[in-house]
């Protein structure tokens, strides 16, 4: 049984017990434990169920490569599914639940899948569930979905905080083992700004654990010396619990720091996302051990050999009382020695190689361990845990030669450099035949815009497995990354004995029959076995990507960290090709899964997107405005009074403007200043109208089109002086139009002497509209606002009630109207004054909906309603705004194209329903012919539709085929589920067609 040893455990503090629960049972571990080590220490070896067959799963590894030991953490409102127990630091009060089982981990109904597993090979679902057709959606898919899925879905919004931080580094080193520490020190000594990140809470990586017993102390000193040398350098920054998640183009690196996962507390963020721009990146991420495929290698209790010695040495925990070691290399003998030193029985090291004559096997033999060469595992015995192993000759088909009782198996199939980060941005790999691994090809590093490599790799990640070798490599790489020399005084690294080469063992035993291969797991989480990969090859899924997708090999939450190479090798064998010919799948960020919370950072809830508020916002709020988001702004939609509905409020506001006076917060309108000697030429190109002839003091309504001729924005342009225009845009369009202007100035007309400034927020703007508008303004005292002094479509600077203002005589409602611009800081004060002055005249504030109704009554178009990116100004009867005198403007050439001048285009008209009812927005008119697809042919559509309080009936604007030629005609609008609505084509100007009201 797995258990806590009475002594040992570098990382744990036996004086600090920590209580935790797993599936409701309370256990105790120590500070410094991981959840995995604490569970093992408490004798828990069954921790989860696999994805497909619901096989019992234990703990395989001791780090982020763990495929099996996934748990759901936290109380309900903080549920975090699929957390790896091997990287979860224990704290007092931690709660964990096992996953993918029902009703309990021990008795899981889903485990019935195992009984029929022979009928559920790779990709079986592509070949079945085909008939009957509706069964997939209603029967098969729901069953599959329920049995898949691993962890529970959270049910609450995440209550925790996250933050983003930004940093730069000349050299960023990923990985804090001996290679990373050495590389960082070499780079730091060169005086460069260095950032060193390590995903685990400890420095030194495997150095101490992998050192031989008599060298452990020295190894510990090496780590300490490296650390203190680094800490002495002010230009070096060290961060533990910080995972380098991804490397992107231009040296952009994403690091993820677990700030308080191990010690939850209010007021500090849970995770921190670092966005680092690095000049050079040194990858020192070490290597990952791989298992060996032998029958029943997935039972709880089968563990990677390196992980076993991690548990023994770092946490004082053993996975069993009797541990058999299975290997094809010398390194696993370290585990035998570790266990032996801890007093655990090691009945045998089963070494698949013909001979094991290296120094490490010799030491094992000297320690009294039985080394059985040329042997393999015929089968692991046990149901939910290891009970023994049957041995056989490695070169055989699996005839059992011996049986050894044991309760754990430590397996090593060799190591693979952790090359993910190297590969994220395109670093290439090469196959090392002697070591049977892919390692970075230094000649094919990721390159930056200058064509030079910006990622380097060192240590075990570079295929330099020995500690001293790794450190030497790292010193050179670190120094080179910083453009410096290798320092002469680096701390010494203990030497290790020479290791004999491994022998690749992809199958154990080598001639295993199909029955055995069906029980050899490659991907433990997704239940992909040797037979599955072989099946894929047999069926023609020869590309490694096809095999991956067909079998789901390497697609689990560990992304194949322990299974990929084994799977590739099996595929290569099945295809009778070399492993390098088969190649790898693509390595994608992140290195290990990254919390969404940390990606979001602070930008959630009310901070999700900046809410832009006008200076009058709080007034609107106090008046009970209902809001409408427009771009990033919020604008009052209407101001309902007490029991009023929104419709009633809008109606009242419209009538107030028509009969008395209304006041509108127009501050969100875009205001872009265009200035310079070429300003006139520039606005002539931007607008369809002739703008350069506008006189200072005058305004003109202008249209802007895309290069394709489609109407994209409109607004009033005021000429301020000879070289200055102020261009008003729609609220939603301001930023886009400003960018559009800059695009042309910076990319096409870079020699024009013009600059633009977006002044939208610098000014508050207030529209006062209605027959009594002038009276209200005059009551404030100040500038002359008479029709003579300030005629329609004119503007003037002056004062009103002591405020410096600019007043425009423009109207979007058809009434006498003034738009008053005032410095943003004074806008609220002026607003208050106007509101007070308006009281005597029956003035009402009005919102966006009343604005829309007013303009529709008047037949004014609205960008986004009458235009939708397919409409040209000519469609809207706006030919008058298109200058015939100009050589060119943006969109002119496009508007001459065949389809744009087609007589059959849909054009703007007004509609009056025969019964006075309101047409639904967006309804289509139909003819009685069929179109080419056999549907009823459409001949028009409603672009805006309102109940007009002024006319007391429904009015609408519409685009209708040849519309203006069909005045008086009645057309039908079918309404699904109701009778069609008939409407007569009329002029779109419903109110004051002569324009007498606005021009007084």
């Amino acid at each position, binding site marked *: 049984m797995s258990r806590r040893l009475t002594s040992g455990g570098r990382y744990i503090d036996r004086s600090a017990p920590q209580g935790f629960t797993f599936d409701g049972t309370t256990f105790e571990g120590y500070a410094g434990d991981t959840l995995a080590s604490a569970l093992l220490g408490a004798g828990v070896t069954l921790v989860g169920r696999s994805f497909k067959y619901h096989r019992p799963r234990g703990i395989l590894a001791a780090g982020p490569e763990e495929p099996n030991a996934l748990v759901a953490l936290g109380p309900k409102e903080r*549920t*975090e599914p699929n957390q790896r127990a091997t990287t979860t630091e224990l704290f007092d009060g931690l709660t964990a639940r096992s996953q993918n089982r029902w009703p309990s981990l021990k008795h899981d109904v889903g485990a019935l899948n195992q009984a029929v597993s*022979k009928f559920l*090979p790779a990709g*079986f679902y*592509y*070949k079945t569930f*085909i008939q009957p*057709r509706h069964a*997939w*959606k209603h029967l098969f898919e*729901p069953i599959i*979905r*329920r049995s898949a*899925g*691993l*962890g529970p879905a*959270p*049910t*609450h*919004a*995440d209550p925790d905080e996250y933050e983003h931080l930004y940093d730069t580094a000349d050299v960023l080193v990923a990985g804090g083992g001996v290679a990373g520490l050495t590389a960082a020190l070499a780079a730091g000594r060169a005086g460069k700004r260095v950032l060193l990140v390590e995903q685990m809470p400890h420095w030194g990586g495997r150095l101490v654990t992998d050192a031989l017993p008599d060298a452990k102390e020295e190894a510990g000193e090496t780590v300490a010396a490296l650390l203190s040398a680094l800490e002495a350098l002010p230009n070096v920054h060290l961060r533990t619990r910080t995972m380098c998640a*991804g490397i*992107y*183009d231009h040296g*952009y690196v994403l690091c993820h720091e677990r700030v308080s996962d191990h010690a939850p507390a209010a007021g500090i963020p849970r995770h921190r996302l670092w966005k680092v721009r690095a000049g050079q990146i040194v990858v020192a991420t070490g290597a990952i051990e791989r298992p060996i495929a032998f029958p029943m290698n997935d039972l709880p209790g089968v563990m990677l050999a390196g992980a076993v010695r991690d548990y023994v040495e770092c946490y004082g925990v053993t996975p069993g009382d009797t541990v058999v070691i299975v290997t094809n290399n010398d390194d696993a003998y370290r585990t035998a020695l570790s266990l032996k030193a801890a007093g655990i029985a090691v009945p045998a090291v089963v070494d698949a190689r013909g001979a094991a004559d290296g120094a490490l096997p010799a030491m094992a033999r000297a320690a009294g361990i039985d080394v059985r060469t040329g042997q393999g595992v015929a089968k692991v015995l046990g149901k939910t845990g290891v009970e023994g192993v049957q041995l056989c000759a490695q070169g055989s088909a699996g005839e059992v030669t011996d049986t050894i009782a044991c309760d754990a198996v430590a397996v090593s199939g060799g190591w693979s450099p952790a090359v993910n980060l190297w590969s*994220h941005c*395109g670093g290439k790999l090469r196959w090392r035949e002697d070591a049977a691994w892919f390692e970075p090809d230094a000649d094919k590093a990721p390159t930056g815009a200058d064509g030079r490599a910006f990622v380097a790799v060192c240590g075990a990640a570079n295929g330099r497995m020995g500690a001293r070798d790794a450190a030497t490599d790292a010193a050179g790489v670190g120094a080179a990354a910083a453009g410096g020399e290798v320092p002469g005084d680096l701390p010494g690294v203990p030497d290790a004995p020479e290791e004999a080469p491994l022998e690749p063992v992809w199958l154990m035993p080598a001639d295993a029959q199909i029955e055995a291969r069906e029980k050899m797991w490659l991907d433990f989480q997704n239940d992909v076995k040797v*037979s599955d990969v072989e099946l894929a090859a*047999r*069926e*023609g899924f020869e*590309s490694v*990507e*096809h095999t991956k*997708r*067909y079998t*789901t090999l390497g697609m689990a939450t560990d992304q194949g960290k322990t299974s990929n190479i084994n799977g590739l090798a099996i595929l290569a064998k099945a295809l009778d090709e070399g492993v390098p010919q088969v190649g790898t799948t693509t390595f*994608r960020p*992140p290195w290990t*899964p990254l919390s*969404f*919370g940390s*990606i979001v950072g602070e930008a*959630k809830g*009310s901070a999700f997107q900046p809410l832009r508020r006008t200076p009058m916002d709080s007034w609107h709020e106090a008046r009970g405005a209902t809001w*409408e*988001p427009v771009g990033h702004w919020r604008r009052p939609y209407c101001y309902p009074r007490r029991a009023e509905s929104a419709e009633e409020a809008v109606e009242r506001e419209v009538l107030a403007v028509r009969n008395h006076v209304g006041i509108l917060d127009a501050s969100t309108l875009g205001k872009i200043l265009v200035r310079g000697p070429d300003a006139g030429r520039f606005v002539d190109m931007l607008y369809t109208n002739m703008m350069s002839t506008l006189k200072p003091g005058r305004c003109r309504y202008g249209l802007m089109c895309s290069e394709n*001729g489609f109407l994209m924005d409109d607004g009033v342009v005021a000429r301020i002086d000879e070289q200055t225009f102020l261009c008003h845009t729609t609220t939603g369009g301001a930023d886009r139009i400003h960018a559009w202007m800059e695009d042309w100035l910076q990319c096409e007309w870079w020699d024009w002497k013009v600059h633009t400034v977006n002044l939208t927020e610098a000014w508050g703007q207030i529209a006062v509209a209605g027959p009594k508008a002038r009276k209200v303004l005059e009551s404030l005292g100040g500038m002359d606002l008479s029709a003579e002094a300030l005629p329609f479509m004119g503007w003037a600077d002056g004062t009103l009630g002591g405020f410096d203002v600019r007043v425009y005589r423009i109207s979007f409602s058809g009434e006498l109207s003034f738009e008053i611009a005032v410095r943003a800081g004074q806008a609220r004060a002026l607003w208050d004054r106007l509101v007070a002055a308006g009281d005597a005249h029956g003035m009402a504030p009005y919102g966006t909906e009343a604005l829309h109704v007013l303009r529709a009554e008047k037949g004014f178009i609205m960008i986004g*309603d009458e235009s939708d990116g*397919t409409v040209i100004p000519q469609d809207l009867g706006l030919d008058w705004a298109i200058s015939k005198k100009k050589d060119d403007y943006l969109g002119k050439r496009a508007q001459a194209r*065949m389809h744009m001048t087609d007589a059959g285009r849909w054009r703007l008209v007004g509609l009056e329903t025969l019964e006075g009812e309101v047409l*639904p927005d*967006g309804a289509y008119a139909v003819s009685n012919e069929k*179109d080419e*697809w056999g*549907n*009823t042919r459409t001949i028009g*559509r409603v672009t805006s539709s309102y109940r007009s309080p002024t006319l007391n009936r429904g009015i609408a604007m519409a685009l209708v085929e040849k519309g203006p030629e069909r005045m008086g005609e009645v057309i039908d609008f079918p309404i*699904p589920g109701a009778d069609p609505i008939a409407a007569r084509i009329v002029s779109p100007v419903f109110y004051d067609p002569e324009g007498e009201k606005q021009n007084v």
Partner: protein
Amino acid sequence: MRRYSAFAIVREGLKHHMGWERAWRSPEPKSRYDVVIVGAGGHGLATAYYLGKNFGITNVAILEKGWLGGGNTGRNTTIIRSNYLQDPSAAIYEKSRSLYETLSQELNYNVMFSPRGVMMLAQTQHEVRGYKRTAFANAIQGVKTEFVGPERVKALCPILNIDGPRYPVLGALWQARGGTARHDAVAWGYARACSEMGMDIIQQCEVTGIRQEGGRVTGVDTTKGEIGCDKLALVVAGHSGRLAEMAGFRLPIESVPLQALVSEPIKPCMDVVVMANTVHGYMSQSDKGEMVIGGGTDGYNAYTQRGSFQHVEETVRALVETFPIIGRLKMLRQWGGIVDMTGDRSPILSKTPVGGVYANCGWGTGGFKAIPGSGWAMAELVAKDAPGPLSSHFGLDRFRAGRFIDESVAAGVAH
């Protein structure tokens, strides 16, 4: 070829699955074909399939520079819907969607078409009007959609936050028969059926040149030698510009990265597909349990199949805002594909200036759903050397005439 069925699986299961045949042959190229199709993505394979099925043309080769289905077909987020606004779009996408309904049976391959429903959220008044308009258009086009209110939205997808402080959900355009399918299976199913008809799918075979005589195509140069043909269909998505260049003409296509990502798998919590265009993100849950997430394209042109993190960040923000419970999930993997964008965001299915050469591209961010319909229409175009009603509006001449089919009108994100 042996048919797939539960019975076949049982039979094979008793024999340890040693008897399964190859899903498709791996032939050496012949010297000449009636039709050569470049690109074994979904569109290329479907074109081949319907050439054989609808027109009896089976002397066909499909040339693929990598592995079949490895382009955007194998990278997309598999949303299938046909609630498009413009008539020509609705016609081809609805044809496609209806072909998906029976594709598993047609191909004897489970493509896992899952009509779980697609919901496009309206979060501004402007979107409400836009989607109501689309619903009206769809009713006439024979596409079943409806505009539903916030309560229905919440009932269909309980994990949605409809009262978000920033953009409360005002309603949604709901297409109950939209959904998802398994992308690889679509490519594999068509490939198997094509191979079965005697067509040659040749992988690891890159087209490097296009041979012509007197303004007509005669064949292609490839990394596996010269291959003659009477007709040539270019169906290479993001690489269309490169192939057009080889043929001596230009296409109005820009290639930009589009990214997607998945979370770790969790138990089912979302039965529909939700697209939120105001905040710019969409999400569904795969049968494996992963939340499948996408957003907008990256803001620059590129051929590298990876993108910038900034876009991932914006998309995840949008979705955590929309679905607060996913905040504690983790991103498992992000990736990118190169999408082929036209100026009006609609595809090109067209004859070209070179006789016998046809282009099928421009599906951009939303062509997975179109695979069967596009193949159907393209087969007709190639077989008859003239467009049928499904493709006639998607010709190259529309750019010269200004006859755009602009779908961005209805939705910011078109997947």
